[in-house]
């Protein structure tokens, strides 16, 4: 029975990702994992790539997962869960399982945008019935804040430090959500923990569709973003309100913006509270903020255009 997506109802549901995990306080990832699992009204099996979430959720004989869960390596969560899902389909065909089980992968941006892109692309092409969730915190946070292809332009990381000659990351982010939509899979979406209802509706919709689904969820990391530990939701909201992290979905090729901020805020509102962008506010780096603003505007306008065409 589907539980209404109302806080009162949801608060009565069992958390399938328990307290006592060892993620940093203020991390966005466990929040979004709980939201995704709360929105899932089916028996569910999860898979994780090696990363923060994985090393902090299952250590020795302790596990934070109240559902079946598997981790095998870093670059292959999509391939690993595709094996589990395939076995499930066979059991179902043979009548050995009757339950409708859902399969969800939770992987960071390193394991998704970079080293895991091939296995994700392969699983998407093969059409496995699963939801792949990327918790995008914009760098290799587990190994100590190294740049990934999800790291925004200008950000200070330990492998693209803001130095006296090079002011942080010199390249723009890879637009993975578009890359996944371009696979022609039935459902792709971007979501944020600040807009929990939007996020959960997207999870519900993803589960209602057969085939590969992809959700990219912004996951603030106070260690890497150099922000306050209690600012995960605030920063997520600023990312959405500045349109740095637009909320939209692409369902069977049709793009729909799911949230339009009443007043689109300037990108500096998102950058300001984060130490990783601190150096951008010196006069010589103004061009980076300008470029970031241009990129955000361009993508947002493109999405609105695509959305209005429908």
């Amino acid at each position: 029975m589907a539980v209404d997506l109302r806080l009162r109802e949801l608060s009565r549901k069992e958390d399938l990702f328990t307290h006592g995990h060892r993620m940093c306080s203020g991390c966005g990832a466990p929040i979004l994992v709980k939201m995704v699992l709360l929105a899932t009204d089916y028996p569910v099996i999860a898979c994780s790539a090696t990363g923060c979430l994985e090393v902090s959720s299952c250590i020795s004989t302790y596990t934070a997962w109240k559902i079946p869960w598997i981790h095998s390596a870093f670059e292959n969560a999509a391939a690993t869960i595709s094996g589990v899902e395939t076995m499930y389909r066979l059991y179902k065909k043979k009548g050995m399982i009757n339950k409708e089980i859902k399969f969800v992968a939770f992987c960071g941006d390193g394991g998704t945008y970079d080293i895991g892109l091939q296995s994700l692309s392969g699983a998407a092409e093969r059409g496995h019935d699963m939801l792949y969730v990327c918790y995008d915190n914009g760098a290799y946070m587990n190994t100590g804040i190294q740049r990934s292809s999800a790291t925004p332009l200008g950000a200070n990381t330990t492998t693209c430090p803001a130095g006296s000659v090079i002011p942080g990351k010199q390249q723009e982010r890879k637009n993975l959500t578009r890359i996944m939509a371009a696979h022609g899979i039935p459902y792709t979406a971007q979501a944020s923990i600040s807009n929990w209802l939007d996020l959960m509706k997207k999870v519900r919709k993803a589960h209602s569709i057969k085939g590969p689904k992809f959700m990219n969820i912004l996951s603030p990391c106070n260690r890497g973003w150099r922000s306050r530990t209690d600012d995960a939701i605030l920063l997520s909201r600023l990312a959405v309100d500045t349109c740095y992290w637009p909320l939209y979905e692409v369902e069977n090729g049709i793009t729909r913006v799911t949230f339009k901020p009443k007043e689109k805020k300037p990108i500096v509102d998102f950058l300001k509270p984060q130490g990783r962008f601190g150096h951008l506010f010196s006069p010589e780096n103004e061009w980076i903020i300008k470029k970031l603003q241009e990129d955000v505007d361009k993508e947002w306008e493109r999405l609105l255009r695509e959305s209005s065409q429908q």
Partner: protein
Amino acid sequence: MARVLAVSGNEAVAEALRQINPDVCAAYPITPQTELMQRFSSFVSDGKVDTELILVESEHSAMSACIGASAAGGRVATATSSQGLALMWEMLYIAAGLRLPIIMPVVNRALSAPLNIHCDHTDAMGARDSGWIQLWSENAQEAYDNTIQAFRIAEHMDIRLPVIICMDGFIIGHSIQRIEYLEDSEVKNFVGEYKALNPILDIDNPKSYGPLILPDLFHEYKRAQHEVTTNVKRVVLEVAEEFEKISGRKYGFFDAYRLEDAEIAIVILNSAAGTSKDVIDEFRDRGIKAGLLKPRLFRPFPYEEVADALKHLRAICVLDRSDSFGGYGPLFLEVSSALCQLESRPKIINKIYGLGGRDYLPQHAEQVLEELIEIAKTEKISIIKEYIGVRE
């Protein structure tokens, strides 16, 4: 009634897989394995098996999907060669560490560079320390028989470890040989129903697979893996004994050919053992007491039994179809380790032969045996490790 046919090694192993009917096979094409999974894919397309194929985008994903399907509770197989096995390397350790009984024929091929698609054993030797059991096969018949036995060994509740079955690329994989197939029902009865252990798909009893284990317990975890591996020898023999009952073919840790009263011997893996046996017969005809030992179970290596089989010899040559640059050949290292526990031991030399598909010819075996006669007589070794069959 056994069916006698003429088939390639790849075809024979594909037939074994058809008879076993695994739940899931994830595979990726690579020469010289390609034909094997191609033939198996036809069985899937023609509805001769119930297997779900996952045609992945790399061997890394092939092994990853096998790990997922095996942990889910399925009987799982794949096959590969060379670069494909090298690309799986990371996942091999994980499959073994998670105790997943995955079966993988490896059609042996050289590793690049330079690029080469032909036979040597460098690929499987690179997987030597991964925790996988390794069975080696001289010909199509042995590859077929080993594949069937591998499922029983891997899935034994005292083992639950993955198994690699090796056969020589092209030399065995692609050449047509006489083979006796067992009946489908015999194979089905022999391998039995698959028993899943802690399957992830048991949704009511959630399990976590693949934890982080830090220095407080990692060492103990690995010791446990070592202890499990010590059960393998017993199970290999039990399974071989049962297999003999249905096939009439006898298997052990190794094949000892005219070794009992031998004074000199060759130790060699896979197809080149056949050529060597012919030459040994010729030397026997000349009154020279020559013999051969062909390992079948390479991992875990049966050190005591090998030492016992070789202890009475005067001189031994271990022929390796792969090199450990800056070291001796991997098979030589194992045989030497086996012998070093003896009070007095045979003289032992190492030849590297047949890399990248270089033919191993009767004259190579002759050359080696002549050298062994000399070593047995003089008790002197001039060169321990040497390449043979080299174009100068």
